[in-house]
């Protein structure tokens, strides 16, 4: 029997390879259903003539004929790949997605090997990209349907006994395959490589592959694996600006998110803003995705989104999410701010899912404290001599006023929690009760550790000593033995209670070597616990440059010297964004973003800038 369709296909592929037409080759090597009729005919011919088994050798020999022989070397990886392509068509059963995934992964792996050929590899670049995209789609689809891979998870997990062993998901496995292709593209030695090069040869695929790999790494939450990719790109890629806009925008989006996730908010802001600026103006979905990270990044750096931005179509709904946070930061009510971004509430689920909840919570609270300190200064501070002539004291704020304001905020929240009733009453705002803490923070509520549970709180109904009680007073409460009423020694090996009441307060019988406890009992003139904490918060604001001035520890005050020209408020509480910007913009370099080399870099006095490449390692080295 003849194989007319297959013969024709072979002839066409041979021509395509000869003419090195990679795009056409990819167009021929379809795998995704629904496939045109001609592929079904070809599949039938394959099943009849080249069934699984010894006849596959014949198929491979036919595939070897597809590659032109030159200088004694032949592109065997491509022959093997083509054979795998045919057996894929022959065997694939798309009803079994997991099996399809395995077949496809083998196929992509082989295609990446074919890509590695220095002369011919570039021909399969579009095919590698196409197959990788299908593989990524399949892996991410399977990831969302855990019932299909449940048995795999069980096998991998070895009945969940070894929880510490890291499980490699299908998505991560796919990312690893795509990374191999990325490395092949990046390390192409033809033409001019590196920063002085242009996207040519396999290098045109650098960002296509990187973006696909990053998409998969973000999907499976393995951001750390991206670090090596960014380092390799910094070391070996041609400048990003020479690549098409879609690749630039996508890459800068992922790079920005990566930097954001690593708390490098300033470079993240540059990358995300560039991604937004270069995005096609009609690409609303992408612009919205960029804004989802660009907005919190700016908030953390002290810049809030304007209505003009939030009213754009791509920002629809984002205002409802971010404006309340901005208002709370400006308001200075730290308890309301914490409650608003409480972990686990339904309102914050969106933030948590996007991975921006914790950065916002932890990074913006200092801005809330700045607002509070600023407001208290406005209303309760000494603003200096209004004449500006006399040599009076500089503007200052007694920190006791800040303490009063904090206590007032705490009391307001306690009251509001008490007023609420019913099933949907908000849970009591625990931070509001922190001012009653006998030890530790007066601003962050912390449940007492049971190890330090008070003796008084033991349940008297159950006449059983608690473990903390026994640990301390076992020699009295449950000794090894005792003399009974007849004067006979009774052993007490079971450790039962012999004497005393577990509910009694034994603390008063303890010897206390300390005559006084200054940390517990504030004495006259000594700062309270809360004052200590206020000092440390303000010290943090001062060291970050978010406030200017100095603290006095005795008779605690914040003093704002040098305010005569600009006034106390702008001097003591400078603009947050401008402060951060002037500090960070000294280095506008964004790691992972390759810029064109500066024309004619003449070494200036001082030797010019030193580029630190200590973090850059060769590609492929983990």
């Amino acid at each position, binding site marked *: 029997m003849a194989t007319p369709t297959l013969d024709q296909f072979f002839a066409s592929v041979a021509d395509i390879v000869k003419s090195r037409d990679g795009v056409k080759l990819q167009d021929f090597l379809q795998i995704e259903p629904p496939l045109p009729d001609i592929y079904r005919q070809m599949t039938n011919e394959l099943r009849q003539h080249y069934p699984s088994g010894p006849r596959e050798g014949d198929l491979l020999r036919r595939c070897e004929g597809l590659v032109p022989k030159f200088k004694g070397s032949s592109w065997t990886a491509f022959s093997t790949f083509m054979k795998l392509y045919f057996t894929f068509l022959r065997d694939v059963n798309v009803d079994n997605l997991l099996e399809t995934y395995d077949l496809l992964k083998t196929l992509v792996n082989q295609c990446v090997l074919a890509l590695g050929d220095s002369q011919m590899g570039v021909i399969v670049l579009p095919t590698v990209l196409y197959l990788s995209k299908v593989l990524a789609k399949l892996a991410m689809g399977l990831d969302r349907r855990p019932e299909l891979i449940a*048995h795999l998870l*069980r096998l991998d997990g070895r009945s969940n006994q070894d929880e510490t062993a890291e499980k490699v998901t299908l998505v991560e496995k796919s990312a690893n395959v795509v990374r191999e292709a990325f490395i092949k593209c990046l390390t192409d030695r033809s033409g001019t490589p590196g920063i002085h090069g242009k996207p040519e040869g396999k290098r045109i695929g650098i960002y296509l592959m990187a973006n696909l790999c990053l998409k998969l790494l973000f999907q499976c939450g393995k951001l750390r694996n991206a670090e090596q990719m960014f380092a390799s790109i910094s070391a070996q890629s041609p400048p990003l600006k020479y690549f098409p806009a879609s690749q630039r*925008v*996508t890459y800068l*989006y992922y790079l920005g998110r990566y930097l954001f996730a690593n708390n490098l908010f300033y470079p993240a802001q540059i990358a995300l803003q560039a991604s937004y600026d270069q995005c096609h103006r009609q690409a609303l979905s992408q612009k919205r995705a960029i804004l989802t990270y660009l907005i919190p990044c700016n908030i953390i750096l002290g810049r*809030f989104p304007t209505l*003009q931005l939030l009213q754009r179509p791509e920002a629809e709904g984002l205002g409802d999410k971010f404006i309340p946070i901005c208002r709370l930061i400006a308001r200075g009510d730290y308890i309301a701010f914490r409650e608003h971004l409480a972990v686990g509430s339904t309102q914050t689920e969106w933030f948590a899912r996007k991975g921006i909840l914790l950065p916002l919570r932890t990074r913006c609270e200092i801005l809330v404290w700045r607002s509070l300190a600023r*407001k208290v200064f*406005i209303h309760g501070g000494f603003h200096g001599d209004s004449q500006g002539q006399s040599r009076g004291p500089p503007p200052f704020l007694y920190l006791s006023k800040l303490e*009063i304001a904090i206590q007032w905020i705490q009391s307001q929240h306690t009251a509001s929690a008490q007023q609420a009733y019913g099933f949907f009453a908000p849970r009591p705002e625990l931070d509001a009760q922190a001012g009653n803490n006998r030890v530790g923070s007066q601003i962050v509520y912390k449940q007492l550790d049971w190890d330090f549970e008070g003796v008084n709180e033991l349940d008297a109904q159950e006449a059983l000593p608690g473990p903390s009680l026994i640990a301390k007073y076992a020699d009295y409460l449950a000794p090894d033995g005792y003399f009974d009423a007849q004067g006979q020694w009774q052993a007490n090996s079971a450790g039962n209670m012999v004497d005393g009441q577990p509910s009694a307060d034994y603390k008063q019988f303890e010897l206390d070597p300390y005559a006084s406890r200054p940390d517990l009992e504030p004495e006259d003139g000594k700062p309270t616990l809360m004052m200590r904490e206020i000092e440390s918060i303000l010290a943090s604001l001062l060291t970050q440059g978010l406030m200017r001035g100095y603290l006095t520890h005795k008779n605690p005050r914040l003093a704002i010297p040098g305010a005569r020209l600009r006034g106390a408020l702008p001097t003591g509480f400078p603009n947050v964004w401008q402060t951060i910007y002037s500090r960070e913009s000294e280095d506008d370099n964004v790691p992972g973003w390759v810029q064109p080399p500066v024309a004619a870099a003449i070494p200036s006095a001082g030797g010019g800038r030193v580029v630190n490449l200590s973090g850059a390692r060769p590609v492929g080295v983990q």
Partner: protein
Amino acid sequence: MSSTQPQDKAEPSQQPQQQQQKSSVLEEDDEFEDFPVEDWPQEETEQGATANGTDAHLWEESWDDDDAAEDFSKQLK
């Protein structure tokens, strides 16, 4: 293998249901979609659209709340 063992069934069949519900929420717009076109000139970008307008005011640097009336102010006197 274990997938055919009936005693294993109870748990795994419940888990996927829960996770499916979760994943339907997850799919909202979490992915960065591929662009339908590969390249475009600067005029078609966000920046190009507002090029004549460096007046595009996207970020507010001055947001300090200077409202005179503050509930706690009377506490400070």
